[in-house]
């Protein structure tokens, strides 16, 4: 399948070697690999923090850590997983796949691309070093609500600057992706032929550019409130602590879709491949993703129904929120319709994708419950919320990441991964993650508040079950690491197309692809839109 138009050029010869290659690289595949490795490291750092949380909650009473440290763990777990694991993983996938999918030689702005990546290890150094500072790491929750967050010790300015730094990385990465997709598509690759992963990423990039600077503004106001006497969030000076929540969630809600939209794109690539059938409703998938993105900017206050907003606000944000169920439903039905009457096989990427569709939908439904204002009054800040967003983020975003990793790992490494281990990883993860998070619905409905190190004894049983699920899920991820390492080191040679039903430009390249993929664009005839 290797296309004649693939142009091998030999500039690699005078690239720096060793560490300098990685520090100075402008190659989208090198940078993509670094993003993915970094993301995996952060996944285990954030996962270790989650293990501390579940260990402390295994039984009622204070057993292992003091409450301050527990609060640091919940705060840091969220920041590390959101900004360190999921977001960089998507950018890593984008770096590897988008140029190959659209027939481009590389990303549009290669030096900026290097900068976007290398900011991250330094930003996370700023964030993680706070664990060793006087007063400990930030413990006021990842949402950084004032006035509580203003009580953070020496860690405070490091937290703010780390957020600024990560934000700069995200915005630079998003700009690069927009320029790449709009300027570097091969001739014949029209917008409505783009693979859905590319579409969902463009939409994500616009969300990033519009929302991350607002977060930068919000944390800047926190910084000046703490150190320069401003009164943004102090009612005594005419400000309002609730104003922070509005500004934060104006960023925070689009952020939710930043985390999940590329997942939609990956699942939309995998399901047609293993169903051996074109994606059902391609254009409706594009319009649904765009509608979700638009709506994400007008629903933010559903995170703060209980702060005492005017009734008109409560109603507007409730209706707007429930409206999101429409385009999301379009997507779920399209995935199901793609599988309908198809000839499916169940390799690991497909297993994770099907689990995604089912479990993400559970998270979507609990989201609908939380979106109903009077109902949210009861659920707000309980474990029901924790269960909800872990269903959308772990069995949603993370499962799609795993699906995508298994799907493209043979393309990246040139070797097939160990299918037996992959399926074992899938079943262990899927069973344990439900044991971990499903009981948290019950805990929340029964009234257990989130972000607490100790709880009333009536919550003991389900917490123990949840923790046991958590430990199994945590250990199972070592298997994921083992599969990746094993595949990178060797294994059966992967074919160019890898999967029988795979369609799209990336599968016309050798596995692994050459250092520079499309220095000259592929022939228009090879662009058929495929299964998209």
């Amino acid at each position, binding site marked *: 399948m290797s296309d004649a138009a693939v142009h091998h050029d030999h500039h690699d010869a005078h690239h720096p070697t060793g560490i300098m290659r990685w520090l100075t690289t402008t190659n989208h595949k090198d940078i993509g690999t670094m993003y993915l490795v970094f993301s995996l490291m952060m996944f285990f750092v954030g996962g270790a923090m989650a293990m501390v949380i579940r260990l402390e909650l295994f039984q009622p009473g204070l057993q292992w850590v003091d409450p301050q440290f527990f609060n640091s763990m919940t705060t840091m777990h969220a920041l590390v997983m959101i900004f360190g694991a999921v977001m960089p993983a998507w950018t890593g996938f984008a770096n590897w796949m988008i140029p190959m999918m659209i027939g481009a030689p590389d990303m549009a702005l290669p030096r900026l691309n*290097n900068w976007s990546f290398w*900011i991250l290890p330094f930003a996370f150094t700023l964030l993680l070093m706070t664990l060793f500072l006087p007063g400990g790491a930030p413990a006021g929750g990842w949402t950084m609500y004032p006035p509580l967050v203003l009580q953070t010790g*020496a860690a405070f300015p*490091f937290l703010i*600057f780390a957020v600024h730094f990560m934000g700069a990385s995200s915005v630079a990465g*998003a*700009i690069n992706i927009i320029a790449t997709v709009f300027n570097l598509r091969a001739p014949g690759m029209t917008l409505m032929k783009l693979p859905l992963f590319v579409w969902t990423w463009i939409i994500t990039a616009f969300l990033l550019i519009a929302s991350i600077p607002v977060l930068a503004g919000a944390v800047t106001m926190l910084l*000046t409130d703490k150190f320069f006497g401003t009164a943004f969030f102090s009612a005594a000076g*005419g400000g309002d602590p609730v104003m922070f929540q509005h*500004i934060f969630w104006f960023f925070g809600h689009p952020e939710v879709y930043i985390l999940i939209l590329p997942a939609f794109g990956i699942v939309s690539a995998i399901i047609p491949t293993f169903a051996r059938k074109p994606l059902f409703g391609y254009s409706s998938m594009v319009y649904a993703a765009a509608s979700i993105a638009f709506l994400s900017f007008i629903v933010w206050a559903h995170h703060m129904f209980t702060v005492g907003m005017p009734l008109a606000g409560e109603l507007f944000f409730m209706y707007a929120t429930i409206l999101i169920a429409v385009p999301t439903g379009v997507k779920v039905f399209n995935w199901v319709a793609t599988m309908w009457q198809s000839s499916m096989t169940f390799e690991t990427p497909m297993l994770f994708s099907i689990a995604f569709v089912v479990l993400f939908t559970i998270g979507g439904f609990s989201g609908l419950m939380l979106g109903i204002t009077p109902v949210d009054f009861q659920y707000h800040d309980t474990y029901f919320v924790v269960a909800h967003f872990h269903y959308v983020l772990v069995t949603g975003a993370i499962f799609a990441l795993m699906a995508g990793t298994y799907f493209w790992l043979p393309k990246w490494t040139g070797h097939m991964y160990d299918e037996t281990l992959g399926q074992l990883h899938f079943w262990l993860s899927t069973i344990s993650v439900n044991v971990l998070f499903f009981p948290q619905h019950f805990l929340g409905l029964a009234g257990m508040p989130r972000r607490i190190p100790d709880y009333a004894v009536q919550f003991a049983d389900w917490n123990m079950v949840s923790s046991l699920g958590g430990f199994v899920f945590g250990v199972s991820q070592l298997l994921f690491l083992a599969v990746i390492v094993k595949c990178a080191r060797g294994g059966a040679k992967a074919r160019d197309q890898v999967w029988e039903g795979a369609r799209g430009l990336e599968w016309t390249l050798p596995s692994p692809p050459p250092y520079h993929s499309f220095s000259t664009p592929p022939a228009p005839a090879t662009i058929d839109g495929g299964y998209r």
Partner: protein
Amino acid sequence: MANAQAAHHHYFVPESSKWPIIATISIFTMFVGGALTLNDSGVGPEVLGAGFILFVYMLFGWFGEVIRESEKGIYGQWEDTSFRMGMMWFIFSEVMFFAAFFGALFYARVLSVPWLSGAGAEATTHAVLWPEFLADWPLLKLPSDYGFSEAKDVIGAWGVPALNTAILLASGGTVTWAHWGLQKNNRGQLILGLAMTVALGAIFVFMQAEEYSHAYHELGLTMSTGIYGATFFLLTGFHGFHVTMGTVMLAVILARSIRGHFKPKHHFAFEAVAWYWHFVDVVWIGLFIFVYWI
């Protein structure tokens, strides 16, 4: 891609570069230095300064490399389009950064300050918290002076701010006039127009600094005079910072123009800086209307 000819057929993908990692290290150093300074721990300012020196070195190095590539004719239409998109969306991200502060201004003025004096359904808030408080804008009399001071007065719109509006609008005209000069290959008009723009930018910043001094020393209007002072200084301060950056960028473009850089049909850097300049101009119009005037 050694020769310019190849650039027209292949998209230019630069070789490995050391500048991005130096940029990261310099900004990281500045953040650590800044955080140490804010925490009052000894060496903060020195670390901050070292980071800044490295940052400036990086700017010369990175932009220098790009300028040399541009002058060698490596960048064609195709590369230019990427740069344009990059600059356009960077400016949009800046717009959203300012939007956060404008949002804070509107929220405080329209919602939270009236609520503090009992508007809407907030009669209890008012009665329980500060029953004496009356909503007003600009807010001079604060709900409580605990931790804050009160300003005697605010800066009126029709003095220096109106003059600064005229200066900035005029500078938008001079930079466009310079652009016309470049397009007609009239280098004198290009250089004169840019020099006038840089001068107007510098005058704006100088007058703004004078106004800050007046606010701090005579009006008692500081960052810690409640929500008005907070929104006033953060909005005008970030704007002033952007004007300063824009003036430096224009000065670089002026120096390059004097050296004979840019062609009538190929001058992305000029356009990028001109766009940036119009952006700070538009932000100022918003500031003049919503912060100073109404």
